[in-house]
């Protein structure tokens, strides 16, 4: 009474939906690439984080090692504190690691670049990075440039 073709086509339809969900999860949103072995948290103190947002990439030597999970304002030092979650796969950053806010391309999004130093001790969960380089604010750059131009004359 129940046609086999109809059952087959409905089954194929539902499977196609599941396949598309998997495609969206893995290929489009890159779900698999985060959080395989857990993460640990590092913080960094910046004078200026202009343009940085949560979920921005954290990279070391161009490889994405984690994400920004929070940006706070520290009243005592009048600086911004950026919380980052770093994958456990990349657990070896020395204690004199420096962090800088970089831009992907001319108009691309801001991200944090970490560069390891030579200290034998490594940063652990919850540690703070003090050696930082702030975001470049375009207006300040233009201001400096104009100042140089006028002083050269």
């Amino acid at each position, binding site marked *: 009474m*129940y046609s086999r073709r*109809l*059952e087959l*086509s*409905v089954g*194929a*339809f*539902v499977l*196609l*939906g599941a396949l*598309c*969900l998997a*495609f*969206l*999860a893995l*290929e*489009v*949103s*890159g*779900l698999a*690439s985060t959080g395989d072995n857990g993460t640990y948290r590092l913080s960094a103190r910046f004078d200026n984080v202009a343009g940085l947002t949560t*979920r921005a*990439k954290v990279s070391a030597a161009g490889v*994405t090692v984690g994400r920004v999970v929070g940006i706070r304002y520290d009243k005592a030092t009048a600086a911004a504190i950026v919380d980052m979650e770093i994958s456990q796969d990349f657990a070896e950053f020395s204690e004199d690691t420096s962090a800088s806010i970089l831009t992907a*391309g*001319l*108009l*691309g999004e801001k991200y944090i670049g970490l560069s390891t130093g030579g200290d034998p001790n490594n940063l652990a969960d919850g540690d703070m990075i003090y050696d930082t380089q702030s975001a470049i604010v375009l207006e300040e750059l233009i201001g400096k440039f104009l100042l140089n131009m006028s002083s050269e004359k």
Partner: protein
Amino acid sequence: MIDWIAGVGRSTLSQVSDLGRASLMLMQAIFGRSNVGVYGRLTVDQIYAVGVLSLSIIIVSGLFIGMVLGLQGYTILTDYGSEQALGQMVALSLTRELGPVVTALLFAGRAGSALTAEIGLMKATEQLASLEMIGVDPLRRVVAPRFWAGVISLPILSLIFVSVGCLGGALVGVSWLGVDSGSFWANMQASVDFFDDVFNGMIKSVVFAIVVTWIAVYQGYDLVPTSEGIARATTKTVVYASLAVLGLDFFLTAVMFGEI
């Protein structure tokens, strides 16, 4: 003047009673004594009718909308020298907005109108009354399977639409216009979040599915049983469902993405 006020009152009363009857119908169809074994099979039948048969229009329009997004996005982004952000643009606009909304609009036109016409014709030819005569509840025998089929099918169609659209965008962007394949997909993966974007889009799609199918089965169940009544109810289904989808989309977007 008095007549005018009375007119406002009459139309308000009829709107409210319409809404009440629609809610009652839905409640009785869903929460009536369920008989999953028999009615589940009817639902599978209906998934074939509203879901599988809508596949072709969904895939074709998804592909072309993705390709148009790729083409238009490229011409704009290339002005700013940031055409590597094309994947991000295509994927975000598809998962957040175009996927759920366009699928729901197409679904209202392709499957919603068919549901209304089918149930309406059953009513006009007194098949619903005959079912009641032999002791079968038409709400559960006719309306409930169609409702569930719509609610199940539309999110699946929406997933397919978004996936095909992303592939269409990649086809135009990467294969034709020469955006680097690596940066296209990497940018897409970096900016699309599964829960914020894909999952919220699916929530939208489920809401649209409930509203569109509800309007379609109610218009069919409640129409004036004449050929003219069927024509009018079918038109109403498409118009009301499209307006409801577009209006709800604004509210859902404001709630989901308002802060970002």
